[in-house]
């Protein structure tokens, strides 16, 4: 199936600061993508350019095979919910939902009402009087009920409590199963979101560090624990992202290359303990590793 989003050598600079650097990326339809990265990695900038709300300094953005800028047929198939969403000051919750029902062609009003009940959102309350969590819930409702073929959430749950976040994940998965579509979720809560993500795009300083299915990534990345000598022997020629020594033991996290054989099997044969690794921990190690490398290079 052809890609739903294609970014070709995309760059966005603000004066001397480059937020996105020569980025090339392709996203397939009907998948849940996690757009991950540290603060300032370029996630929000990238999403703004995807939805034609921001202009690239150079490069090409294609959504559904076309440039999204001023392209009605493309724009009406997208819904972008951002953390910093501004609403007209006099609007109430019901006004936002009413406007959304007019502007999104696949809008499901009954589903929106059900979500309003789930998140206990007061329909008649003025937007200015909503708490941070309620504002996030409103964004989540618009995003889910829009049923847009490309739905993008940028940090959608700031201020949402754990229960509400759980409702969001559950509803998203249920609705995704019934109405498959491309969902891009930009988040810092990697552990929570990892349960629903199918594919991960990790950005680091405006470039793609990882672009891989979650299952494959989980398969390739793991931690081994054992005596220092054994582990060091095992690690020869492998891509190590984190090392931790305690007592006479060494704990190493590695990301196996796709071509290499079954490293887990090899580790087990050497009687090393293989420990599963969370996606969040892997992302932390990968992004830290790059920083450490930079420090070394600058010396």
């Amino acid at each position: 199936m052809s890609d739903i989003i294609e970014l070709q050598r995309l760059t966005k600079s603000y004066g001397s600061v480059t937020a996105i650097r020569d980025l090339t990326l392709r996203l397939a339809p009907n998948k849940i993508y996690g757009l991950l990265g540290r603060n300032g990695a370029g996630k929000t900038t990238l999403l703004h350019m995807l939805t034609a709300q921001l202009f690239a300094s150079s490069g090409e953005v294609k959504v559904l095979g076309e440039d999204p800028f001023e392209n009605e047929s493309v724009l009406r198939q997208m819904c972008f919910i951002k953390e910093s969403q501004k609403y007209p000051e006099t609007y109430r919750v019901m006004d936002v939902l009413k406007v959304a029902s007019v502007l999104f062609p696949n809008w499901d009003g009954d589903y929106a009402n059900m979500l309003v009940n789930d998140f206990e959102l007061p329909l008649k309350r003025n937007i200015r009087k909503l708490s941070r969590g309620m504002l996030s819930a409103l964004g989540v409702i618009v995003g889910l009920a829009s049923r847009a073929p490309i739905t993008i959430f940028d940090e959608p749950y700031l201020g949402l409590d754990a229960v509400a976040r759980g409702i969001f994940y559950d509803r998203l998965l249920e609705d995704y199963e019934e109405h498959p579509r491309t969902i891009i979720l930009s988040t810092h809560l990697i552990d929570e979101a990892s349960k629903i993500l199918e594919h991960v795009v990790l950005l680091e300083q405006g470039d793609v560090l990882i672009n891989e299915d979650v299952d494959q990534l989980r398969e390739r990345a793991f931690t081994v624990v054992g005596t220092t000598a054994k582990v060091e022997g095992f690690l020869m020629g492998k891509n190590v992202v984190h090392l931790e020594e305690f007592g006479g033991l060494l704990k190493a996290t590695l990301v196996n290359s796709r071509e290499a054989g079954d490293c887990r099997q090899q580790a087990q044969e050497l009687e090393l303990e293989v420990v599963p690794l969370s996606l969040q921990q892997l992302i932390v190690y990968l992004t830290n590793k790059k920083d450490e490398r930079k420090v070394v290079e600058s010396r």
Partner: protein
Amino acid sequence: MNRIQGVLSIYFRDKWIWFLTPLIIISSALIPNLIISSFISYYISLAFILVSSSLVYMFVTGIVSVPQTFSFTISMQVRRKDYFLGTSFMAAMISAGLTLFSLILIILERRGSDRWGLQFVDGVNIPELFGILFVLFMLFFYIGFIISSAFQRYKAKGLLTVLTILILPPCLFMLSLVYEDGHGLYMWLTSISLAEISLWSIPLTAVCGFLSYRLLRRASV
């Protein structure tokens, strides 16, 4: 559904800016004057007061509409072109409403009254007057709109540039009144009819509208 209708629905739900604020402005301009005029011999035209307060309202609405609605509308995946057309259509509807209201008052006041302000519309028939007032209201809207569009596109630099362009020529003109042949300029100014002013306003309105669109087309949110 047509996206321009979608933009209109955004405005229709924002009753404060587009419906209640003009009502408040018109009422606060007219009611005190009506009360005073019923007690004493009043010599200022109420229609004149209404038109001048409506011009201020259209100008302010042009300024506030972009910060209030542009970001939200674009975030709802509406094209910038549709936002501009929808907003212009909304402004045209409100201008037509204010023009009608002003005309009714002018017609009522013209009957046996020679209040100050009515001399500006002497000899102008009703259809002409409709066109004149409508164009003036739209001009004031677009002057406000270009200010906020410049801010949306270029932030403080854009705002400063547009304000300088808008403020400098009238200031220089006033200065020339003082230092040059002030009397001659004043006489020329007072000799211009309302119809002539509105005719000159048409290209100015078109230019302000077009520039606002060009600014918004490249504005990010």
